[in-house]
């Protein structure tokens, strides 16, 4: 097989799910659950959201019927890779008490099948690269994430129709998957087909099991058009020039009071954010049982408890918590990991019940900042 892009027909998507399943993967792909598109385990191509579109704006998410049969014709799914590779609730260890002694009896939980993702967008690929760095790229690693991640297969897709809250092109990404995938699909209509690019040896092996033919110049031109159209269709944008210095210099900005008055501290933004990684631990023991579990669960810097030490919370005010969140995403992350902690997926805007918009808040900070800070004004 040549390394160039190839074409598969619409029917080969079902074959792709079969091939991945036969290779032992749990296949996780876009599917409709409770009125929203999520990435979840599917058993066949019928589970995919054929002809389903979405409408996203600040505080708004609706499914809509498309006037075509496109299967990947949505913007960012509510949940994608993060909850699968970095579960919201996970066993760290289980122990058994005997008298005043105890022993750790389990550190693994139940074994899981490796996961093959189908339909991952570039925003989530880049979020995954952030998690690889945060959770598996430093002195101490989240060993469960590391193991799960190492066996993961990624079939990405080009994001043909970004939503009203998307701004990935501002954050260094774009509609077309650039790296970190095994296969990358671009959906083309009339006739319905997919251009497939190979990103790894495993990807090549999987593609070899499908009926494919080399992509022609027309196919590649169509891919180019899809990407160009999507690039022009971002609903939002963010000026990243000098963001780090801008945020640091804005620590006492009046903008925090205003956004702090609107924020409900519901934590939706941190739950849907694909890069947010903060967790806490919970000890679970049943009354009368000698067994206890330590579990790692997602946490949020929007809770007052998050920064609690003896004597009280270090961030009692909502303004302080919003400042912590956005400053971490857009500024401190750059010092910690050399990249932006925001990939521009827009989920925090869509799923905020009061429609707080990270791009708008960053713009307000810039407008309110002293002239010497933050580059372009």
């Amino acid at each position, binding site marked *: 097989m040549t390394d160039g892009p190839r074409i598969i027909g619409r029917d080969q998507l079902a074959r792709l799910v079969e091939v991945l399943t036969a290779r032992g993967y749990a296949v996780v792909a876009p599917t409709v659950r409770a009125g929203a598109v999520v990435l979840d385990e599917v058993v066949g191509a019928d589970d995919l959201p054929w002809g389903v579109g979405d409408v996203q704006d600040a505080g708004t998410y609706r499914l809509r019927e498309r006037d075509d049969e496109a299967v990947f014709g949505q913007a960012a799914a509510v949940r994608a890779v993060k909850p699968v590779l970095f579960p919201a609730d996970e066993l760290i260890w289980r122990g058994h008490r005997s008298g*005043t*002694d105890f022993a750790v009896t389990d550190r693994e939980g139940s074994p899981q099948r490796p996961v093959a993702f189908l339909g991952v967008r570039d925003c989530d690929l880049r979020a995954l690269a952030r998690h690889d*760095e945060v959770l598996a790229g430093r002195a101490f690693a989240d060993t469960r994430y*590391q193991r799960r991640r*190492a066996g993961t297969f990624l079939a990405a897709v080009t994001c043909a129709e970004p939503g009203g809250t998307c701004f990935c092109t501002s954050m260094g990404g774009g509609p077309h998957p650039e790296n970190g995938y095994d296969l990358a699909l671009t959906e083309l209509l009339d006739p319905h087909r997919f251009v497939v690019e190979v990103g790894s040896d495993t990807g090549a092996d999987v593609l070899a099991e499908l009926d494919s033919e080399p992509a022609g110049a027309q196919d590649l031109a169509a891919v180019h058009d899809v990407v160009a159209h999507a690039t022009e269709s971002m609903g939002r944008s963010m000026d990243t020039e000098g963001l780090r210095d801008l945020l640091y210099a804005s620590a006492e900005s009046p903008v925090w009071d205003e956004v702090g008055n609107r924020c409900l501290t519901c934590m939706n933004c941190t739950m849907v954010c694909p890069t947010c990684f903060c967790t806490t*631990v919970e000890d679970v023991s049943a009354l009368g049982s000698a067994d206890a579990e*330590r579990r790692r669960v997602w946490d949020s810097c929007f809770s007052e408890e*998050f*920064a609690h030490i*003896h004597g009280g919370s270090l961030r009692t005010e909502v303004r302080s918590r919003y400042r912590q969140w956005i400053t971490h995403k857009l500024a401190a992350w750059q010092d910690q990991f050399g990249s932006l902690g925001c990939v521009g997926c827009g989920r925090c805007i869509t799923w905020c019940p009061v429609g707080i918009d990270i791009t708008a808040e960053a713009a307000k900070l810039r407008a309110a900042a002293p002239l010497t800070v933050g580059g372009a004004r």
Partner: protein
Amino acid sequence: MTATLDRPVAPDAMAPARYRIGRTRQDTRDTFTIELEPVDGPMLRYRAGQFTMLDAFGVGEVPISISGDPTRPGPLEHTIRDVGAVTHALIAAPRGAVLGVRGPFGTSWDVADGMGGDVVLVAGGIGLAPLRPALLEIVRHRDRYNRVVLLYGARTPEDILFGDELRSWAHDHGIVVEVTVDNGQHAWRGKVGLVTNLVPRAGFDPHSTLALVCGPEVMMRSAAQALVARGVPGDRVRLSLERSMKCGVGLCGHCQLRDLFVCVDGPVLGYDRLAPLLSVREL
């Protein structure tokens, strides 16, 4: 795939090692020092200023600074104030009971940086406990340091920690120990007032001084300001920060202070780095 994923899976830093309580000593009304011996493996090695995550089975886990002597073999010591469910379970556990220990984690006082000069230690309340390993390290190599001054503030005379050792450090090891209390009723004949007020007149040469400060954050901030006002360079003033910590290894995110993960970048940090951060309310 990214290069980080090719790394071998590291040992799990979240699983505790078992340690058995040898002795629990009551230091004050609400503060206890527990001595631990390893059950499963060798005694952990630590540097002065580091902390561990101490686990009371089924109750929870808390970060506690090690208060023992890093230069000598012996039980692992933690001095714990009884302020919550986990700390209460830790100090109430009987002799022979087994606790979980993870660590040691975090940065050290690196007190050896003060060799050849003066060392000033400023402690407030339970903040003396994380400084004790640094003091013991100095005592062990006393001749390598010039003047050593300990300024210690407690709430009341009954809250003074390590009373016998304070006397021994003063009488046997040539350390200037000045103790002050907030509330000096009863038979107290010593100083009354804030420990930070002792800084301006304490006998040390600011330009050759390494200062180590541990206590409530408001006290550390004013102590650091007083030290810098005396002429101690900001990078020679070290503070040990307290933050919420659930993992101790930089993964849970709770302890973040702007770009710092206090559990791995700290807890001991230079005041030159901290000053702009601690001056912003609720950062």
